[in-house]
C-alpha cells in the first residue's frame, strides 16, 4: 500500500506497538461476553448488509452511487461502541457502517438504497445521506470534507448546552486536503471543543493513493493546531477502542479536541462504478484480506478467548444474511415516495401548516 511511514504517532497509553494485546486494555477487558459478541455481530451485519446491497445494485434495484465499507468495519464498530448518550457522530458518504454501528435497523437502511418511502430518509437522501438524529447520527454527507465543520458545530452545541459528551467527525484520507477541514481544526482547537476528528485512512481517495495526494503525515497536521493526535490500526476492533477511548475521554472531560488516524482498507472499488483495475493490485487486496480482515481477526481472538465457538459464528453469520435478505424483501415490497412527497420535508413551516408564521409562496413552478 502506498501510505507514508507513520513513525511519530503517539500510540495509545498501553502501547508497545505490534505486540500489544489490546484485549487487556481496560476499555476492552471490562467488556462482557455479550458485548464482545455484539461487536462481532455488528461487523458481520455490516458486511452482509453491504454484500446484499451490492447484489441489489447489480440487479438494478439501486441507483446512483454505492460506496461500500467492506474491510473497514472495525473502525465504525469500534468507535461507535464507545458512544454514550451525549456523544454524537457525523461522517461522509461511505456511511452504511456507521449507521449500523450506531444501531439503525437494516430495513430502513436498505429501503433508503431502494429509494423507498420506508427508507431512513424517506427515499430522499440515498446511500450517501443516511441520518438518524434519534441515535445522535448526523449523516451521511456527500461533499468531501464538508461535514467536518458540522461536526465541530455538534461539539459546540454539546459544550454550549453544558453536556458531558463528545462529537466524532469522520473523514477519509482524501478529505484532509480540504480547506474546510483545516478551518474546523482551528476552531475546535481555538475554542477547546469536545470533538475527535477521525481519519479513516484506507490508503486511497478514489483512485489516488495517499502518496500521490497528501504531503506529510495526515494526523500530524493536528500539531499545527496544537492538538494531540494518534494513530492506530483499524483491523483490530480492540485496538480501535483502546485508542479512541483515550481521545474521547480527553474531549469529554477536558474539552480537548484531537485527531486520530485509523489505518484501514477497502476491499471494493471506490464505489461500485469503479472497476478497480487502474491504481492497485489484486495481490494488495488479497494480502490485506488474508492477514488483516477485521471480522476474521476478531473472530480468531474471540475463539481463542472462548467467547465464540464455531457454531455461534455460523449462527451469527446465518442470521446476518437472513436479516439482510429480509431487508431486501422489505425494501422490494415497500412503496416509492409519491410525486407529492417531493415537496415535503423542504420547509418546516410547509410541513407544519397550522404553526406557520410566515406568509407568501414557499414553492415556485
Amino acid at each position, binding site marked *: 500500500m502506498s501510505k507514508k511511514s507513520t513513525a511519530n504517532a503517539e500510540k495509545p497509553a498501553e502501547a508497545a506497538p505490534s505486540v500489544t494485546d489490546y484485549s487487556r486494555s481496560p476499555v476492552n477487558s471490562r467488556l462482557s461476553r455479550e458485548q464482545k459478541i455484539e461487536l462481532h455481530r455488528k461487523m458481520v451485519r455490516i458486511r452482509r448488509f453491504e454484500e446484499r446491497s451490492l447484489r441489489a445494485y447489480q440487479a438494478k434495484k439501486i441507483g446512483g452511487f454505492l460506496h461500500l465499507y467492506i474491510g473497514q468495519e472495525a473502525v465504525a464498530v469500534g468507535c461507535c461502541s464507545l458512544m454514550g448518550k451525549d456523544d454524537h457522530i457525523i461522517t461522509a458518504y461511505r456511511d452504511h457502517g456507521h449507521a449500523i454501528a450506531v444501531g439503525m435497523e437494516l430495513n430502513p437502511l436498505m429501503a433508503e438504497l431502494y429509494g423507498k418511502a420506508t427508507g431512513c430518509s424517506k427515499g430522499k437522501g440515498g446511500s450517501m445521506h443516511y441520518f438518524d438524529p434519534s441515535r445522535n447520527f448526523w*449523516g451521511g454527507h456527500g461533499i468531501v470534507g464538508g461535514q467536518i465543520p*458540522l461536526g465541530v458545530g455538534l461539539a459546540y*452545541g454539546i459544550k454550549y448546552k453544558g453536556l458531558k459528551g463528545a462529537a466524532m467527525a469522520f473523514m477519509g484520507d482524501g478529505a484532509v486536503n480540504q480547506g474546510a477541514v483545516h*478551518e474546523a481544526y482551528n476552531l475546535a482547537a481555538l475554542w477547546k471543543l469536545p470533538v475527535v476528528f477521525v481519519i479513516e485512512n484506507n490508503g486511497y481517495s478514489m483512485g489516488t493513493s495517499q502518496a500521490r495526494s497528501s504531503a506529510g503525515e495526515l494526523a500530524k497536521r493536528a500539531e499545527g493546531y496544537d492538538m494531540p493526535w494518534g494513530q492506530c490500526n483499524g483491523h483490530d476492533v480492540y485496538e480501535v477502542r483502546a485508542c479512541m477511548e483515550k481521545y474521547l475521554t480527553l474531549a469529554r472531560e477536558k474539552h480537548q479536541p484531537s485527531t486520530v488516524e485509523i489505518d484501514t482498507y477497502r476491499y471494493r472499488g471506490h464505489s461500485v462504478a469503479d472497476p478497480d483495475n487502474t491504481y492497485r493490485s489484486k495481490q494488495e487486496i488479497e494480502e490485506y484480506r488474508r492477514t488483516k480482515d477485521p471480522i476474521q481477526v476478531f473472530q480468531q481472538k474471540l475463539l481463542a478467548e472462548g467467547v465464540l465457538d464455531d457454531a455461534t459464528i455460523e449462527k451469527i453469520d446465518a442470521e446476518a444474511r437472513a436479516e439482510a435478505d429480509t431487508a431486501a424483501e422489505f425494501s422490494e415490497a415497500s412503496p416509492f415516495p409519491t410525486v407529492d412527497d417531493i*415537496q415535503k420535508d423542504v420547509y*418546516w*413551516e410547509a410541513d407544519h401548516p397550522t404553526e406557520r*408564521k410566515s*406568509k407568501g409562496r414557499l414553492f415556485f413552478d
Partner: protein
Amino acid sequence: MPLITYREAVRHALAEEIERDRNVVVMGEEVAQFNGAYKVTEGLLARFGPERIVDTPISEAGFIGMGIGASMLGVRPVMELMFWSFYSVAFDQILNNAANVRYMSGGQIHCPIVIRGPANGGTNVGATHSHTPENVLANHPGVKVVVPATPYDAKGLLKSAIRDNDPVFFLENTMLYGEKGEVPAEEYLVPLGLADVKRQGTDLSIVTYGRSVLHSLAAAAILEKEHDVSVEVVDLRSIRPLDIDTVLASVAKTHRVLIVEEQKPFASVGAQLSYMIQREAFDELDGPIHRVTTVDAPAIYSPPIEIEQLPNPQRVLKAALEVVASSE
C-alpha cells in the same frame, strides 16, 4: 414613535432575541470586542458577555459550518458575514448543508440558523465586495431570504427570522445602516413573506426591495409632481417566501409594471417576478414589464460611475416614463 437607525434596529432585534431565548448566539468576525465591522453589534458584548457574542476567526466555511452543526442540536446561531460577498467561501456549507439537511434527512433534522450581513454595491469597494446574492440564495428550496429596506422592517423581520425553524438569510445594506425610521418602542414582529405597499398609486406599479425601495420612492415623488403619474411602490421585503399576491393586486390596479432591483439582470429576482406576473396576470398588463437592474458587469470601482451602474432615482424615473409611454 422613536426614530432610530437601521443599524440600531438590527441591533435591538438581536438584543431582544438574545434576552428572550437562551439558545440565541451571535457570531462572526469582529462582532464582539471590535463592536462590529459596521457597528451593528456595538455594545452587545458588554451587555451579554462572550458566551453569547462570539468573535470568530476569518474562516467563513469553518464558522458558518459550525453554526449549522450547532443549529442541528438546537442552538440558534445568528452568524454575521462582514459582507455577504464572502458567502462564496462558505458556499458549500450554506447551500449543501444548511439548505439540504432537512430534506436529505427526510425531515428529521432542523437547521434554525440565521446568516446576516450587508449585501450591496454603492460603496466603491469593487467587484469582490459588492455582490447581491439574493437570487442565488433563493434558488435553493429549503432556505428563506429577506431583504429589508427600512428600520421598522429590519427589526421586525430579523426577530421573525431568528424564531424561524429553517435557515434564513438576511441581507442588509451598508448604505442603509445610517437611515432613520420610526420604530415602536414595544415589541412587534414582521412576518417573513409579506410585502408592504410603501406608496399607493394608480398608474404604475414599481415592484422592488432593499435600497431600491428608497430610489423608487424618490422617483415616485418626482413622477407625481412633474409628470402627473401616480406610482404604487410595492416593497417585497422577503424574496423567499414571496408575497406574489400583493404584487398581483397592485398590477390589477395599475396595469403597468416596472421592476427595480440591485441585481445583475441574468436570472435575477426580477426575472422570476416577471415570469410570475405574466403567467398569473397576463390579461391585466397594458404593456411589457420593464426592469431597472444593475448594469451588467462586475461592480465598477470608479465612484461617480458606480452610481450609474446601480439603480438610482434618475434611472428609475427614466424607465418609469418609458413604461408609461409604451403602454399608452
